[in-house]
């Protein structure tokens, strides 16, 4: 018997029991939907987060300062780090929240005082104008570089160079506008950057919030980290007053978390596929007993064992693969919705699609082979007598 004929027979019998076929497929549909959605979301999130961390520059080491107000480190001291063991560029920042105004518009934004090197270390993208220069910091100028969203909200356009923005009663001149960032970790969009010394005077705040250093090269990251760590310990006198973190440590931690999540979610998805498979097996077994007489007739008129086997196996594989296809289709729709809600880029990769389809076909074969074998091994005479 040809495969096309077997397929036709299988389709006919499945169509004869539409409701049952659909309900049996539902298990696989839900399983595959879960697989595609979960894997795509985790992959999307992984790509997003990894990309953001990596965009910070792979040589980045930074320290968060958490010392009490009485113990602080000055910008001049921090700058001494430049050129010390493994360290290339150093920058420091301090940030706070404030309302920024332009004309009648006002907006709550993060105001961050930074040194001129900040841009070099953090790789910010400028849409218009320039970033703060060393002279701005030294001369404590009232120049500001504003984030994309700040510009849009205050002026309605990003072409706002030379406009004035008011922070805490002081007018700043916009000298640069940043491009829209897509970072979930540190949003530059709602930030206004001003010279660090200007910030310290304006907010009456001598402390530094964070110190960023970029190592000379990727191999020097560990050395740079040690240098920064030892220097801060010497200056602040207590290791509880700061935390030094490097980028690879963040990536490692995230990889670990995402890895655990992937395994967990894949496990859940696999279980639901397994349950779907058991559903198929159950229905196929029922179908074999219901159709015992049919099997007897087919055998009496010359169907071989293999013909019966293939017929039933194809039925279960058609059920599972059709379920898989519908699941993937629903998965694609689901991803569109997730994209809208989570605002991240989700792609259903070919490998995920192949995995889901392959898995569902596998489920159909594995759980279909038992019932098909049972049908094929029926003795024609027993099957014919069956009422």
């Amino acid at each position, binding site marked *: *018997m040809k495969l096309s*004929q077997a397929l036709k027979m299988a389709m*006919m019998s499945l169509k004869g029991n539409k409701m049952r076929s659909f309900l049996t497929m539902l298990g696989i549909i839900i399983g595959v939907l879960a697989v595609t959605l979960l894997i795509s979301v985790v992959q999307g999130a992984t790509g997003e987060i990894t990309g953001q961390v990596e965009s910070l520059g792979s040589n980045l080491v930074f320290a968060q300062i958490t010392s009490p107000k009485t113990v602080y480190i000055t910008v001049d001291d921090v700058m001494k780090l430049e050129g010390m063991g493994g360290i290339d560029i150093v920058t420091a920042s301090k940030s706070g929240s404030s309302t920024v105004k332009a004309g009648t518009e006002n907006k709550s934004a993060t105001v961050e005082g930074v040194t001129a090197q900040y841009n070099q270390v953090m790789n910010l993208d400028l849409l218009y104008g320039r970033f703060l220069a060393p002279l701005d910091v030294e001369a404590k100028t009232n120049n500001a570089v504003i984030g994309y969203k700040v510009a849009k909200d205050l002026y309605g356009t990003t072409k706002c160079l030379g406009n004035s923005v008011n922070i805490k009663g002081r007018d700043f001149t916009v000298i640069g506008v940043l491009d829209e960032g897509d970072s979930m970790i540190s949003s530059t969009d709602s930030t206004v950057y001003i010279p660090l010394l200007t910030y310290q005077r304006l907010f009456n705040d001598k402390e530094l919030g964070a110190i960023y250093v970029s190592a000379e090269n990727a191999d020097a990251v560990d050395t740079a980290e040690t240098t920064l760590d030892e220097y801060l310990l010497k200056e602040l006198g207590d290791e509880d007053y700061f935390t030094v973190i490097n980028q690879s440590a963040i990536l490692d931690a995230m990889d670990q978390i995402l890895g655990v999540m992937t395994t967990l979610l894949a496990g859940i998805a696999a279980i639901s596929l397994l349950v779907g498979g058991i559903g198929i097996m159950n229905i196929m077994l029922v179908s074999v007993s219901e159709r015992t007489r049919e099997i007897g007739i*087919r055998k*009496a*008129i*010359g169907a*071989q*064992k293999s013909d019966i086997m293939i017929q039933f196996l194809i039925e279960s594989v058609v059920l599972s693969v059709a379920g898989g296809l519908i699941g993937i289709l629903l998965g694609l729709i689901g991803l569109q919705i997730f994209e809208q809600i989570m605002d991240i880029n989700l792609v259903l990769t070919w490998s995920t699609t192949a995995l889901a389809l392959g898995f569902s076909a596998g489920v159909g074969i594995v759980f279909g082979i038992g019932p098909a074998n049972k049908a094929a091994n029926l003795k*024609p005479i027993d099957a014919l007598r069956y009422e």
Partner: protein
Amino acid sequence: MIELTDIKKTYLMGETEVHALNGVSLVIPDGAFVAIIGPSGSGKSTLMNVIGCLDVADEGTYKLDGQYVKDMTERQLGTIRNQKIGFIFQQFNLLPKLTAYENVELPLIYQGLSHDERKQRTIESLTKVGLADRMDHKPTELSGGQQQRVAIARALATHPTLILADEPTGNLDSQSGKEIMQMLKDLNAEGRGIVLITHDTWVASQADEQVRIVDGQIETKGRKGGAQ
């Protein structure tokens, strides 16, 4: 040519053994029209199942066209059922979800014939039983007599040399029964061997030879015309 020698078949009904066939020897030459008669439980159905390769004898030898059936694989038996033998059952045994056409086509599909050849043979068979105009009807849309004719068409489609009919008129009214018997006689006239099982004496009398079986053994054999 069917050669049965000392065939025995025993079933276990609960604790007791039932000797359905208890030493049956029978030779049916090609092209013969034989009726096997006997009361119910006499073993005549078992005999037909053995002849039709649906069941295997416990003891004795069965030679079909010179080949020992016992030595054949399951696949070979399937091929014999498919190509050499055509079955006609009392309950018609058509597949209810298939149309008359599809039912008749089924054994040809298992033979692996091409679509065109299947179509030609299926239509030829259905025309022969006078149901060419009912091809697209499902069994439930046909009368009993028509269903049995579809079953005959299905048996004929593979051009078998032997037709086995198990009470073919048992579920039919007498008029339909007569039509079916006429059809079988015509097929016999074409040279096909026919083995018929019945307990209806009129049906049996249509055959050339009658074999009476009682308690799993052959009681009498007789040619048409009375001579025992």
